[in-house]
């Protein structure tokens, strides 16, 4: 049962690590704009030549 000392220590240390990662994210401003990235991800990276195809369509 002595392994519980080890397991508990590891779990608390891991939890602390996650907490620190969260605080680091918060400080670096990752949560400041939680809306724009959701739109940005939907933009397609098209080559400029596509616009010519488009204008000839009509």
């Amino acid at each position: 049962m002595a392994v519980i000392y080890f397991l508990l220590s590891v779990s608390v240390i891991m939890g602390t690590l996650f907490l620190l990662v969260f605080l680091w994210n918060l400080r670096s401003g990752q949560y400041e704009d939680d809306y724009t990235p959701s739109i940005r991800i939907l933009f397609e990276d098209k080559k400029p030549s596509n616009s010519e195809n488009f204008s000839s369509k009509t």
Partner: protein
Amino acid sequence: MSATHTHIATTCYHCGDTCKPNETIFYDDKPFCCNGCQQVYALLQENGLCEYYTMEDLQRISQKAEVRAEKYAYLNLPEIKAKLLDFSDGNTAKITFYIPAIHCSSCIWLLENLHKLNKGIQYSRVDFLKKQVLVSYAEKETDLQAIVTLLAQIGYEPHITLSDTEKAENEQKRISREQKQIIAKIAVAGFAFGNIMLISFPEYFGFDSHSEGSFRKFFQYINFLIVLPAFFYSGWGYIHSAYQSIRKGIVNIDFPLALGLIVLLTRSAYEIFADIGAGYVDTLAGLIFFLLLGKWFQQRTYDILRYDRDFKAYFPVAVSLQTAEGTEKQVPVAQLKVGDRIVIRNQELIPADSILLKGEANIDYSFVTGEAMPVEKVLGEIIYAGGKQIGSTIELEVVKPVSQSYLTELWNKDEFQKKKASQEATIRLQNFLSKYFTFALLAVAFGGIVYWLWQNDLARAINAFTAVLIIGCPCALALSSPFALGTAMRIMGKTKFYLKNVAVIEQMAHIDTLIFDKTGTITETDKAQVEWKAIQQGLSEAEKVAIKLLARNSTHPLSQQIYQYLPLDTPLRIEVQDFEEFTGKGISGKVGNFWVQLGSAKWLEVEMPLQDYHSKVFVKINGELKGYFVFRNSYRKEIETLTQNLWNKGYDLHLLSGDNAGEAPYLVKYFLKNEKMHFNQSPHDKWEFVKSLQKSGKKVMMLGDGLNDAGALQKADVGIAVTENIAYFTPASDAILDASALGNLIGFLALAQKTMRVIKQSFGISLIYNIIGLSFAVQGTLSPLIAAILMPLSSVTVVAFTTLSVKAKGNFLLKSNRQNINC
């Protein structure tokens, strides 16, 4: 292909407006309504950005306004640049623009592709909710003027003011830092709460004390270790605040909270290290966690709103100066000197008191004085700062520096500044109740200690004393108002009523008197009602066309309104000949067979049929008087129901207007009595009026929109700025109301009252929990388990009760009100 276009109603390929048949421009086989739109298209096409037009939710922006690059020349002045830039190292510079026009995902797409339009731009990042764009550019390749001109050309003119960049920006940064900090605190407390609960589980179910005794100690030590950061980092604010208020001699809610926290920590430490029990570390961590959640919940802020903008935000940053050589130069407004000659164009603001030297001045003072109609000024007349020129370009000579102008002086008066008693929103009801609560709690705690000492049981005495302070810790009490008020604030925000902070709700609950401003508040901005009054017979179609054509040639606001008012479907193909404009008098010209004159009664030598204050334009065709146009304010349609309901509910209503009494006969149906309506009120009169009402014991709510209301808005118990576009400038206020939600005002007032009632009820609930807990505590039999269950349970009950009941009330009130407007 283009031949077919002319027969059907064409819409502009860029902005989507209907193109006027004879004004349509064809470019690349596509119709455009104006040069501006066509140029944006050409610019985008050239750079391969036509994908913009295929975006699904494209909501278009018209580009009719002409962009003059010189207008932004001031941006390259070193002293202004230094204030605007976020960062600069000589090579790379970063700047954040506030762009009110951002509204859809295509905006984001276009603005983030700026580097394709200007090679000097390295990247641009949009923050959609804040309507901001961060632009990073190479200083050697491009400059601010070029970037802002480009933005303006594609329809995204940034809003640049210096006060926003200095004070407001710092304020904004402070708030965002505080919010980050509170989230960090919640994270630490939540981490401690969760882990301690987990580690305490064996304790809750009972250790087998023989074989697992050493585990037990180990678990307790780890718990204690984890709770330390929660106490000293997350919970320290409460202890600090309690200490501060005690020093000032005030007992607020933080005092019993801090007392509870300290007792919890010391007793837990004692129990754990003296090997008596497990202590109350789980309760301690949970308490801090819930308290912080409540604090965070009531701190709802609206990203794009500013409540404390001063008049500088309304002013331009720079103005065109006429130099001795006759050229124009951009200078910062603050550097204007007496005797400088400045050039003001259409829709630009006059930054300093000055004298008219050249041109036709039509000054719109509505924002400063409340006057609805633009005022004409003649050469040599003084024009006060804050007015907006409408029409052609004028030249002025500055007679007073900006710092001594009428408007600035007005603003800087001490009495116009609201006393900033405290930065934080203080809830009076909560502080009032918690004072009594604290004294009762201390009485019970000392009562317990005295009783057990009398019984000669010292251990029990200390036990009971600490237990009372722990269980009495008014967690539920501290949570009820943040959650109730926070919920109410969110509901109001959803229905377009944006509060500065939650304390405004408490103020609103006590309001008994409402004061309305006229221009811009109960009237619609930029929309006067035009009415045609014929003298003998009506106008023929041909005559209407002639009047419209003539009016189109003038930039005078009244001419523009006549042009808008007259309906017309046929294309305007007739030319106006011999057009002449007489400043301050009227216009005349020959349209086909008609010799049309539009102008004042005096100029056209007409007997005034009726003496009132409304602006009128008389019409003579071929020398014969046909009739006249009357310009009247157009009132918001909700006003009638709103005022009626408010009167029925027993509120006292007043009207305070800077305008003349011309509208009084129309307004009396809303305000019932003539003595409730006050006209020709200067900003100072308005301030005095609010003050006198307050002296007679009234709780006053002021609704206004302009700088002329700023003093009264500050003085009133609740000052509400009414605006048609929340992204634009509003005077400093406690709340900002979108004009479309004005009809809901009565619902907002009722919701505020109901919310305060819910808070009182939830105090009752939390008191019941406290009494149950105290009955254990005074006997000295409070086990950590009971504490650990009771505390979260009472908190959750109170939070659920307050949020749900406020939400239900809000839905009921605001929905029923919406129906009222519909029928």
